[in-house]
């Protein structure tokens, strides 16, 4: 290429191009994410007959409050019990996950030993190998944890641990080792080094994990279905079964239930979404 042709100005994208592509992206996002949500909201305020048609028609009768009360009081206020159970499982599992994963990530990153390779292989296996349901139930039964809330908490911890350990390990690599050493010289015991120096510095990753894991655990449908049967053990996602049966379905109540179940994770996400991105990329690039 000659110097002349290299200097010729390149054709600049026209002004309207970003507007069109932007509008197109917005439209796609609207159809994929917002339309289903509006559909749910619309069905949730209809009466039973209107809702069973499952269309976008305007409701002939608005009965949002009625549907709300029906959903809450269904089966002796089962939804409230489900909220309680789900909250206990989510809070318990996430708290355990954070402390355990941060500790494992810390030791894996800081202490060089021959076991590191084996432990890392196990952590990766946890990500790659899908869990087998029936053997897990055998184990739970053997430990007396089947059909118990704390058994469910341990299951969720086990499923989330690999991902969390990897995230923590990558982030801890960016914290200079001299900080640990300064703390040791200041007289900190190993647990104090971890809890007073390292853990506070892991905040970005911790916030990310709290959000990602609590949404995943709160929204989990299949695992409580397998490992936590029993009326008094119901979790929010399982209450959806209340309104769907072989012969009759109450679509308006089902969708009201969906709406109520969606709200807590949505609130968490809206408040924390910026920090999630910060934590996800933390440790990806050093410095």
């Amino acid at each position: 290429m000659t110097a002349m042709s290299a200097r010729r100005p390149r054709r600049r994208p026209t002004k309207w191009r970003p507007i069109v592509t932007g509008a197109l992206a917005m439209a796609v996002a609207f159809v994929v994410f917002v339309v289903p949500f509006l559909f749910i909201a619309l069905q949730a305020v209809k009466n039973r007959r209107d809702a069973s048609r499952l269309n976008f028609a305007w409701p002939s009768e608005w009965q949002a409050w009625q549907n709300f009360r029906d959903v809450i009081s269904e089966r002796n206020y089962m939804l409230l019990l489900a909220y309680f159970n789900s909250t206990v499982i989510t809070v318990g599992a996430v708290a355990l996950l954070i402390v355990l994963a941060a500790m494992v990530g810390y030791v894996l990153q800081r202490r060089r030993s021959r076991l590191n390779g084996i432990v890392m292989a196990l952590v990766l296996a946890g990500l790659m190998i899908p869990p087998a349901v029936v053997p897990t139930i055998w184990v739970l039964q053997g430990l007396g944890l089947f059909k118990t809330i704390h058994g469910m908490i341990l299951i969720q911890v086990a499923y989330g641990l690999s991902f969390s350990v990897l995230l923590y390990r990558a982030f801890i690599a960016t914290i200079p080792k001299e900080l640990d050493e300064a703390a040791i010289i200041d007289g900190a015991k190993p647990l104090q080094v971890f809890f007073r120096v390292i853990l506070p510095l892991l905040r970005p990753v911790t916030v990310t994990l709290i959000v990602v894991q609590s949404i995943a655990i709160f929204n989990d449908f299949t695992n409580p279905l397998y490992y936590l049967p029993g009326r008094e053990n119901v979790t929010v996602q399982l209450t959806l079964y209340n309104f769907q049966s072989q012969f009759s379905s109450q679509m308006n109540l089902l969708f009201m239930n969906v709406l109520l179940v969606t709200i807590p994770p949505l609130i968490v996400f809206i408040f924390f979404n910026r920090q999630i991105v910060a934590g996800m990329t933390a440790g990806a690039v050093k410095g």
Partner: protein
Amino acid sequence: MAEVQLRGVSKSFGGLEVIKGIDLTVASGEFCVFVGPSGCGKSTLLRMIAGLEEVTDGEIRIGGRDVTDAEPSARGIAMVFQNYALYPHLTVAQNIGFGLSLARMPKAEIEAKVRAAADTLQLTHLLDRKPKALSGGQRQRVAIGRAIVRDPKVFLFDEPLSNLDASLRAEMRLEIADLHGRLDATMIYVTHDQVEAMTMADQIVVLNGGRIEQAGTPMELYRRPDTPFVAGFLGSPRMNLFNGDAARAMGTGVYGIRPEHVLLSPDRGRWQGRVRHVERLGADAIIYLDVPQLGELVARTGGDTTLGPGAQVWATPQDGAEHRFGG
């Protein structure tokens, strides 16, 4: 105040021996500088004194007490790191008082001690700030404050000034020297910068390849280096060192002469050479000569020299300033 004694201290990583049997005594209240090229083991040796690295063999005594296997916090030492190692989530006051709060000292007492340390280092107005809001020099002062507040018998510095720019480095050098005068504590200081070593030390320990090459006062090492390595390491520009035929002709294995001890004359002298390059530093000038018998010879002369590239001059070593090694 305490004496630090190393007896036959060595350290191996796997099969690699990085510290090879070091015997050294740092007198109480002395400012001792470990200096050497990178990879010579100076930082490792300091970390062994701090207790951050295990000692493979030998014994470390601080204040007469054997601390070879003691915890770092039980050795009566404090350490200042190259990258400051301040706790980013704590304020300056909390950083300085961290060790005291770990020791569960009463709050009022911690505050008083932190304030006293901050006064010494002119940090009082910064006590509520986080480390990220401080400049490099201020961070280094906080790191020193964290060391002072522990009231240690021995201060350990691991290249504390290498992250600072040149003017700040000169300032902090003076400040650390002042601090040493005021606290009268034993200090061990690691650096690769021979200017820091020469200006601050009571005793310089030159390390090379995990061994002590030579130890002594700065001027002792400058005037009477035991080995070509020490001779070449201290002094700037470095000593002219010649081996091979040039040295054999002068009846020695390695012949050395410092640039400041090379006298230049337009008409007579021992070696004739041609000026290749002149570096003017203001007060003095560094002359690079091509001398047929020797190779390159560097000389230091007054800043007002009129010599320019291509000029023919005669060079003569000053009487009594020549060094002969392994002759």
